[in-house]
C-alpha cells in the first residue's frame, strides 16, 4: 500500500483538527442514511510480489504481437516502437504531472504539446492542430460534430462504407440524439468510394472519408474534396499518419479537417487504448476546434514560453456552450508520438512508409498466387489488403494460422456480411520477408477446414 500515516500520525492529526476519530469526521459529513457500513467485497490486498506473479500468469494466457507474428490491422498496428520512446516518456515529470494549469511549472509539457501540434500540421499539411483527442474514432466523430457546428443550417453527414466500420458506429451513436441524417455511400467494386459524390447535396454539412481506406485502398481525395466543396460542405479525412511518408497529405488534397489514429506513432497496441486522436484543421476553423491547444507567448521578462490558449472554447469556461466536453486528453501518447516522429524525421517516415507499401504489395502478390485465395479489390493499397478465401471459413483459417504462430488478420464478415469469406491482412515495416514467406507457406498448406495439413 502507498499510505503514509501511522496510527500515531492519525492521532496527532485528529488532535490538531479537534476530532476524536476519523469516523467522527466522516459522520459529521456523511449522513447516516448515506453511509456504507459493510466492507467492500473485493479480493484481498496483494503485495507487489504476489501481484507480479498473478498478473504475469494472466498475461501469459493472452496471445499477442509479442508471442505471435502480427498481421492484424484494421486501425491498430504493430509498428516498431523505439526504446527511446519508452525511456523518455516514462520519466516521472512527464508521467505524473497533469494538465498545465500553472504554465510556469509546466513548460516541459506545454513545449512538447506545441511541438506535437506543429508536427501534426507538418503531417497533415493543415494550419492548426489541437493537443490530442481520445482516439482515431472519436476524433473522426468530433471532426464531424465540429463541421456540423461550422456549416450552419445543414444536418446531413455523408460517409463511405470504406471508412472504418467502428468509426461509423461511433458516428451513429453520437448523431442519434441530434437532429442529423447519416448517409453511407457504398464502396465500389474496387473497394473505393468513387461514387460518393452522388450522395453529397446542398443539405450536406460534411463528408467523412478515410484514405487509405479501411481496405487499405487509396481514394481519389482531391476529386471528393472538389465535389464536397462544390456543395458547400467540409471534407473530413481520416488518414494514416505513417502513410504521408509517401502519400500526399490531407491538406494538400483539399481536406478541411484531418483526423487520424496516432497509435502507430510510438504507442503500444494495448488492446485498443489508450490511443491517440489526432486532429488538424484550416485556420478559419480554429475557434471551433475541440480540445486543449498549447500556444506560444512571452512571459513578463520577454522570454518565449507556452500556455494553454483559446481556452474560451473549453468546457471549464464555456460550460454547455463549449466546443467539446473534453477535459483530460491523451497528452502522454501525444508526447510519445512527438518523440517517435523526432526519431524518424522525414527520411525515417518515408522509409517506414516505403516498407509498409512494398511489403504489402509483395505479400498481396504472394497470397494472390495461391490457388485458394484471391484479392477482391484491384488497385493500389497501403499497408493493408483484403484477401478472399474461396474455400473454408475465415474463423477456422485464423485459428489454424494462430497455431502456426500468426495473428493472421482481421475477418471482415463482422462488419460486411458480403465479405464474410474475406479478411484483412496488415503488413507493417516490422514484418520481414521471411515472416511473409512463411505465412504464405502456412496458408498454402491449409485444408478446407482451415487446419494446416501435416501440422
Amino acid at each position: 500500500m502507498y499510505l503514509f500515516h501511522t496510527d500515531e500520525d492519525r492521532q496527532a492529526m485528529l488532535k490538531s483538527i479537534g476530532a476524536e476519530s476519523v469516523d467522527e469526521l466522516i459522520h459529521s459529513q456523511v449522513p447516516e442514511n448515506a453511509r456504507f457500513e459493510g466492507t467492500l467485497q473485493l479480493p484481498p490486498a496483494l503485495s507487489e510480489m504476489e501481484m507480479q506473479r498473478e498478473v504475469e500468469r494472466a498475461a501469459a494466457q493472452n496471445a499477442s504481437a509479442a508471442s505471435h507474428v502480427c498481421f492484424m490491422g484494421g486501425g491498430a498496428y504493430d509498428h516498431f516502437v523505439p526504446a527511446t520512446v519508452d525511456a523518455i516518456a516514462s520519466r516521472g515529470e512527464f508521467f505524473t504531472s497533469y494538465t498545465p494549469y500553472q504554465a510556469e511549472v509546466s513548460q516541459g509539457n506545454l513545449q512538447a504539446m506545441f511541438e506535437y501540434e506543429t508536427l501534426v500540421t507538418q503531417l497533415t499539411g493543415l494550419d492548426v492542430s489541437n493537443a490530442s483527442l481520445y482516439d482515431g474514432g472519436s476524433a473522426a466523430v468530433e471532426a464531424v460534430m465540429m463541421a456540423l457546428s461550422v456549416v450552419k443550417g445543414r444536418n446531413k453527414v455523408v460517409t463511405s462504407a470504406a471508412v472504418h466500420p467502428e468509426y461509423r458506429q461511433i458516428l451513429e451513436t453520437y448523431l442519434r440524439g441530434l437532429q442529423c441524417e447519416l448517409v453511407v455511400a457504398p464502396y465500389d467494386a474496387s473497394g473505393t468510394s468513387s461514387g460518393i459524390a452522388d450522395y453529397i447535396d446542398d443539405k450536406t454539412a460534411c463528408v467523412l472519408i478515410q484514405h487509405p481506406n479501411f481496405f487499405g485502398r487509396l481514394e481519389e481525395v482531391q476529386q471528393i474534396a472538389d465535389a464536397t466543396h462544390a456543395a458547400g460542405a467540409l471534407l473530413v479525412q481520416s488518414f494514416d499518419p505513417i502513410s504521408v511518408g509517401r502519400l500526399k497529405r490531407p491538406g494538400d488534397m483539399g481536406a478541411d479537417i484531418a483526423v487520424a489514429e496516432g497509435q502507430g506513432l510510438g504507442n503500444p497496441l494495448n488492446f485498443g487504448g489508450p490511443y491517440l486522436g489526432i486532429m488538424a484543421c484550416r485556420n478559419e476553423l480554429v475557434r471551433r476546434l475541440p480540445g486543449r491547444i498549447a500556444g506560444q507567448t512571452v512571459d513578463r521578462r520577454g522570454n518565449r514560453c507556452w500556455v494553454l490558449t483559446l481556452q474560451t472554447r473549453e468546457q471549464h469556461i464555456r460550460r454547455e456552450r463549449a466546443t467539446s466536453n473534453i477535459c483530460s486528453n491523451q497528452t502522454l501518447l501525444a508526447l510519445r508520438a512527438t518523440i517517435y516522429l523526432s526519431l524518424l524525421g522525414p527520411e525515417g517516415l518515408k522509409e517506414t512508409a516505403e516498407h509498409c507499401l512494398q511489403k504489402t504489395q509483395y505479400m498481396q502478390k504472394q497470397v494472390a498466387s495461391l490457388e485458394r485465395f484471391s484479392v477482391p479489390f484491384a488497385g493500389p493499397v497501403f499497408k493493408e489488403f483484403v484477401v478472399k478465401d474461396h474455400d473454408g471459413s475465415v474463423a477456422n483459417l485464423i485459428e489454424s494460422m494462430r497455431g502456426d504462430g500468426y495473428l493472421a488478420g482481421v475477418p471482415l464478415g463482422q462488419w460486411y456480411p458480403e465479405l464474410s469469406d474475406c479478411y484483412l491482412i496488415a503488413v507493417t515495416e516490422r514484418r520481414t520477408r521471411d515472416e511473409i514467406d512463411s505465412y504464405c507457406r502456412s496458408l498454402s498448406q491449409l485444408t478446407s477446414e482451415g487446419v494446416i495439413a501435416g501440422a
Partner: protein
Amino acid sequence: QSTQLLFELSHPGRRAALLPKLDPEIAAASEPLPAHQTNDAPPPLPELAEGDVVRHFTNLSTLNMSVDTHFYPLGSCTMKYNPKRNERLASLPGLADVHPLQPAETIQGMLAILYELQHMLAEISGLPGVSLQPAAGAHGELAAMMVAQAYFAKKGENRPIVLTADSAHGTNPASAAMAGFQTKTVKSNADGLVDFEDLKSKLNDQVAVFMLTNPNTLGLFDHQIREITDAVHAAGGLVYADGANMNAILGISRPGDFGADMMHYNPHKTFSGPHGGGGPGAGPICVRDFLEPYLPSPTIRYDAEQDMYLLDDDRPDSIGRIRSFFGNTGVLLRAYFYIRSYGGEGLRQVSEDAVLGANYLLSKVKHILHVPHGDRCMHEFVASASKLKKEKGISAMDLAKRILDFGFHAPTVYFPLVVDEAVMVEPTETESKETLDAFAAALFRVTEESGDLIHDAPHSTRVSRPNDVAAARNPIMRWTKDK
C-alpha cells in the same frame, strides 16, 4: 539547457532511426503508385540525432512539476502517488502487445482481468451495470447522458432537460449539451450544497437527469443527498453522480446506495493512473440494473457454458459504440492493479486518510485564509482569497504563483465558481503530515509577504507569468521558420 524547439535543433541530413534495407525481391514486386497520390518529399519533420532527441526531452521534462517531484495539491484532480509497479505490470508483453481485434479465445487473461474490474467497480459504486469503454470522465458523462436518452426514448418519455449544479465541473453541462440535452443550473445554498428548494422548483417531467457531484467540488458531502435523489426519482428523473471525488468515499458511501442511478469513475484520479501531463484517463461508468441494457457496447460477459469471457456486442438496446475498440485498457489495467493492491479494507483506509489529510490541512489553512464552508470537509476544501485581495491586493492567482517558489504545485484556483477567489486544496492520502505542515507554513509565509514580491511571482521558475491575453489574441499554435 536551451529551450529551443525540436524544429530549431533540426539539422538537415541528421538521422536517428534507421530502417533495414528492403529486400531486393520485395522491392522488385513493388509497382509505382499513381503519381498524383504520392508526395514529392516527405513532411518537413525535424532532423535530429538520437542524442539530440534524448537530451531535448530529458531537459524538457525537468521544467515540469509532477507528483514524483513535488507536492501537487491540485484540487479536484487527486494527484496521488502513482505506483511504479503498475507501470511495470501494464507493460508486460502479454498485456501491452495485445491487438484490439484479437478473437476472445486468444485473450482470456485480458478479459478475465477486465471482467473482474467490472465487478469491482460495481461493488465500489453499488451500481451493477458497468461499461469500461469511455475514454475519460467527460466521455463517461456523455455516454451516460446518451444512456439516459435511450432509456427515456424507450419509455416514450420526452425529457429534454438536464440539471447541473452551479458548483459542477464544466464537463457536466458540456457533456449534456453534446448529447443533445438543454441544461439548466441548480444553485448552491449558503452551505455550498445543493439548494434543495431551487432543485425542487426545477424538477418536472421535462427533466431527464440531475447531474451532481457528491462530495461536491467544495469537498462537502451533501447532508440531504437521499432527499435530493428521492426528489429526482419522484419526478421521474435519473440522478447522475460525477465520480471525480470518489477518492473521498471508497468503502464509506456508495453512489448507488445514496440514490445515484449512473456515475463515472476517473481511474487516473481515484485509482492512481498517472495523469500523463493531461491524460490519458478513462471514464468507466456504472449504472443501475434497469439502465444496463443501454450501456455502450461491447461489455464483457462470462459465458459459463463455454467457460469463456466474451466481448458482448449483441445488446439491442445499447446506445452503441462510443469509441473505437474496447476502451482505454492501459488505464483500466492500472486501476485494477491499484484496487488489487488495497483490497476492500485498504480502499476504505485510502479514503479515510484522504479525508483525514484534508481536514488536517484545513485545520491549519483556516487560520491563514478564509474557508467559507465550515471547518470540516471530505477529501478537499475550498478556501477564499477574497479578503486578502480586498485588503492587500493579493489574488488567488497571486497566491498560486507565489507558492510555486516554495517548491509546491499550486492548488486549483478560481474553481468552483461559487466561491470568490477560490483556492481549492486536495492533499490526497499519499502525502505525509510533514509535507502538509510545510505547505501550510509556506502558505502562511506567502500571505505575510509584500505585495510586490507576490505580484511578480513566481521568481524561481524558468519562465515568469506568461501573457495569456496576447496568446489568445494572436494565437501562435505552431512553429514556423520565421517565428
